[in-house]
């Protein structure tokens, strides 16, 4: 009981201390809000624009999630191909590394020009492109490092490749997959925001941030930052919860 209470109270206290320090920093330096908004400036921004925050937050959320789902589907497929075939691994790996090395901020204008006006599509596309790489790599490594004995145990009984995949390879790869998904969810979120901020007449929290900038509404910009943080935390912990359900066995019992 005390333990679980601690788990809630300690982070809460930490958060309050952080906000107080932030407020103090602005107050001591006597910074105007165009230099840095203080937490007490944020509340008016939220109450004034709460409807916008809900609408834009939802825009950002669904695009991120859709991009992430695409990244999971494509990433797992590429990972499986690379995990099962050495030739495909040798062929695809340098391409993937090269693609991943390109900063996605440079892809954003290209995509925006390529599919002019297709804002939703573009945003989902960037979220997908930035986040599928860790998933593909982790799945391929998980599959290709499966100890031969695991295969032999089932193959000796006459099991098909599909059976070996479902019974052993897939569940054994799940911890790596979720590790990658935690990275991917944050990346997808970054991708969505990149597109939202850069593309004109955009939507989502990124666009709200951009409009704060053009209207010199600095508290609004900071309010968006906090809203993004909250959304990112929520997404991250959804993945953590899924991991507990599907790969909880990989966690060592405490003690």
């Amino acid at each position, binding site marked *: 009981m005390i333990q679980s209470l601690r788990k809630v109270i300690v982070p809460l206290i930490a958060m309050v201390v952080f906000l107080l320090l932030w407020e103090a920093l602005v107050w001591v330096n006597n910074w105007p809000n165009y230099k840095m908004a203080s937490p007490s400036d944020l509340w008016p921004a939220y109450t004034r624009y709460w409807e916008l925050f809900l609408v834009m937050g939802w825009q950002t959320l669904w695009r991120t999630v859709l991009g992430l789902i695409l990244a999971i589907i494509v990433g797992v497929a590429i990972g499986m191909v690379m995990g099962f075939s050495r030739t495909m691994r040798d062929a695809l790996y340098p391409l993937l590394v090269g693609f991943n090395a390109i900063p996605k901020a440079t892809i954003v204008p290209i995509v925006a020009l390529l599919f002019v006006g297709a804002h939703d599509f573009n945003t989902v596309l960037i979220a997908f492109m930035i986040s599928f790489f860790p998933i593909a790599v982790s799945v391929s490594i998980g599959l290709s490092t499966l*100890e031969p*004995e*695991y295969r*032999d*145990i*089932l*193959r*000796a*009984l*006459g*099991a098909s490749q599909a*059976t070996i995949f479902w*019974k*052993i390879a897939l*569940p*054994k790869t*799940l911890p790596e997959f979720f590790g990658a998904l935690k990275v991917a969810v944050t990346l997808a979120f970054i991708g969505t925001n990149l597109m939202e901020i850069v593309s004109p007449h955009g939507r989502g929290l990124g666009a709200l941030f951009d409009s704060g900038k053009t209207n010199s509404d600095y508290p609004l910009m900071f309010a968006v930052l906090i809203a993004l943080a909250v959304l990112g935390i929520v997404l991250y912990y959804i993945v953590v919860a899924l991991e507990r359900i599907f*790969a909880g*066995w*990989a966690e*060592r*019992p405490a003690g």
Partner: protein
Amino acid sequence: MTSLIDIKGVRHAYKTANGPLPVLDGLNLSVPEGGFCAVVGPSGCGKSTLTRLVAGLMKPDEGEVTLHGEPVRGPRSTVGMAFQNPVLLEWRSILKNVMLPLEIVPGGLKGKAAEDRARYLLSLVGLEGFEDKRPSELSGGMRQRASLCRALVHQPEVLILDEPFGALDAFTREDLWQTMHEVKAKEPFTGVLITHDLRESIFLGDQVVVLSGRPARTQYVMEISRDKAPSLDDLYTPIAAERLNTLRHQIEIAQGRVTEEASA
């Protein structure tokens, strides 16, 4: 009397970048039904290749492997395997791990019958009460016991053990030797045991086969007759010492440290 496992004149070479690497060259082995054949030999002499041949996981270049007089052409569900690494599935309970082969083999027990069979085997090896534990919660010896149950759950004709006790400490290993005899009394099987431990080979095997260094051929066969399961004390009798001496000498020949002529 026909043998259950028959290996005749088997030759096999692995293809490597530097040309073929012969691992087996004239391997003969014959295990009668209910027999337990221990195979010893220098490191890297092709003992594991032998297990893969019997399991049907690979085909020899030359020669024949037969089970019940039928040539082995591919994997068959009448084989049970256990390795040095127990390879239990971490996401399954011990009970579900043991039941795994029943989900694969055609006509395997299902539902309650499958569970009862697994529970029975676990109680046989002293793992009663651990059915719902995860593999990571068990010690190395216990995991190896569970792995043994999994190898036996579908009542295989042939049990293939590839150094199953190799990674265990000496006391745990001796415990498991005795467990093997207890299990064999209640769940008869025909077995091939690959081992590095000469004491293990004469304690468990009723036939000890010494393979020569690579490429391996059958170098020496020792028959060990016994009318009841041995006790550990039997390992410290003059007859055991003599057998161990003979085997050790054969291994030295296999390693090329002594020539047969010099010893004659």
